[in-house]
């Protein structure tokens, strides 16, 4: 498949994925809230209403970093999808170290969310930014452990090789602890539910409290972009990516990405968020040891 065609498929995958994610999010919210009626296209209408409103600037903001945080977050989601093989010979960014590139994207999310809270020159936004950094650092460690464990059977840091190594057995079965832990990272990277410490209700919207108009719409689109990028990476690392019978590889990838995305959206509406100190205790004392155990078991299996 040519690079241009692969790029086109990736863009379609991203745009359709974001639309489906927004509709799914609305569906889950309405179902849980007990609402009846109303259109599932509400998020599209809401986006149109947002861009129709004024983009307000605060007093003495950091305009460049405000723009950079939104556009950068959107780009990181796209890079996540770009390292994912859409088929045996089709990937936009084909690197032998694509897992390392994805790890760098994860870390940069922490930087960009911080900048999003820093830029408006507003105290509640800044509290959201600092809190996200506090949670983001241990969550990144957790991600590194489970991704290295997923790479061990392939003996490679190339996502293409990791997908190929799952021809006989998916990593979700070989390493059952890996995917649930990785999904927790997804909740944090996409600022959702129990791990949304940046844009939460106790801060009246946190880092996005001052966003209005196109900035507000842009930040929501960027979050959706990260949801698609993350879900596709998780589908490739743990569910065999494009592997599957009869149907084209990209259809299998889309189906598996949708499954991960649905789980993340459902969890974000169903699970409560604990205060940050309690969550930090849970991550350092419980989740990180479990992630290390996952890596240890994967290492022992690789040596056996």
């Amino acid at each position, binding site marked *: 498949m040519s690079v241009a065609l692969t790029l086109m498929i990736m863009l379609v995958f991203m745009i359709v994925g974001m639309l489906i994610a927004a509709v799914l999010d609305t569906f*889950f*919210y*309405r179902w*849980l*809230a*007990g*609402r009846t*009626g*109303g*259109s599932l*296209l*509400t998020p*599209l*209408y*809401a986006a*149109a*209403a*947002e*861009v*129709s*409103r*004024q*983009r*307000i600037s605060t*007093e003495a903001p950091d305009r460049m970093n405000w723009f950079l945080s939104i556009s950068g977050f959107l780009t990181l989601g796209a890079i996540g999808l770009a390292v994912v093989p859409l088929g045996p010979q089709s990937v936009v960014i084909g690197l032998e170290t694509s897992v390392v590139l994805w790890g760098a994207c994860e870390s940069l999310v922490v930087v960009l969310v911080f900048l999003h809270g820093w830029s408006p020159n*507003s*105290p*509640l936004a800044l*509290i959201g930014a*600092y*809190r996200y950094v506090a949670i983001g650092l241990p969550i990144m460690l957790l991600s590194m452990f489970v991704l290295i464990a997923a790479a061990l059977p392939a003996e490679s840091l190339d996502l293409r090789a990791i997908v190929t190594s799952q021809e006989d057995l998916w990593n979700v079965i070989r390493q059952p602890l890996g995917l649930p832990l990785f999904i927790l990272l997804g909740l944090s990277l996409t600022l959702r*539910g*129990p791990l*949304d410490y940046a844009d*939460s*209700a*106790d*801060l*009246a*919207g946190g880092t*996005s*409290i*001052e*966003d*209005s*108009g196109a900035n*507000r719409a842009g930040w929501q689109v960027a979050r959706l972009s990260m949801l698609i990028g993350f879900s596709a990476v998780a589908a490739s690392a743990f569910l065999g990516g494009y592997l599957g019978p009869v149907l084209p590889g990209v259809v299998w990838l889309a189906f598996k990405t949708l499954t991960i995305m649905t789980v993340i959206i459902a969890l974000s*509406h*169903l*699970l*409560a*968020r*604990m*205060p*940050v*100190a*309690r969550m930090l205790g849970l991550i350092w004392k419980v989740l990180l040891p479990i992630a290390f155990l996952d890596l240890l078991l994967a290492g022992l299996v690789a040596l056996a």
Partner: protein
Amino acid sequence: MSWLAKMAGLAEVPVFVAFGEGAPADAASVLAKAPGLRVVETPRAAAILFVVGTVPKALLPQLHRLHDQLPHPRASALWHSRNELPGATRIEEIANISVLLRAIHRDLLVGSLKSEPDFLSDAPPNEWRGIGPHGQGGKGMMGGTPYGRPMAMTAADLRDGLDLDAYTADFGPFLPMLPAGLVLTLTLQGDTIQNVAVAHPPFETQEQRGWVLLNLLGLPALAERMLRATNIGNATVKRLIRLSGARAAIPEGLGRTHDGSDVRTRFDLLTGTSEPIFNLHVQQIGLDDLLIGLEWHEAMLVLNSFDNASLRAICANTSDPEPDTMAGGMDHGVHAGHMS
């Protein structure tokens, strides 16, 4: 009409609610059930400022400042309110809320209703006066309230004595995570509360804030479901709350009072997941006893776990801190504060 305006006209109307005195206790429930409306958590996301109840004269400057934070095109509406806001639509009947607000939103988008101008001039609340009560006030480039804007100043952290940036400012009276009317002067180190004073107590209301606790715990859909339910003990709501792990998410012993109750037990009561097993006893407890040392999220959970009468009593019990313990030194009459 452009295709963008047509699509935007189909959107739910984003409404920021400012509660005043005498707001109906079921106002939040009425708004949750109103079709086509979406209550938002910041005025930056709103098209309509909806004032429910009467904002007292002392807090009118904050209401005007709040109004000016809404992006254009914007409008305002009043319900059960004796306030006068230029250009605002007065709503008399509950049944008309949704219809009127949707019509206003549509008219704003197509331009047949003019966006409301600012009430205040786009200028700092004070002149620059250099070092002094409205000037820099601190050391070097830190501290004080230049132009009436509070600035961070280094002060010892109460946990370990490290000199970190303490920030003192007023929060309220329209922040959605604070009980309506409550204005707190808080000194923060990061998100930890170092000092607290009550600048204005919450308005009297019969509102139950179980749904606010759910919202603070990251469960807005469940909060809305609770508001839409006819009784707080609704079996489906109770089951979903249990499944969410909300109770376990609240640290044990958080906000404990003399009667032995804490946020967890009060959460059970407010959400109808348990029967009352204690008589709330808040004599001799102030907000300084409850909030100092807590991080922001915990403090918001504590504040919303009390019924209105108890919280008003706690505010009355709160002792004013020594002026030099509030880093930055606030001047309540003039500074900008954070109402939302």
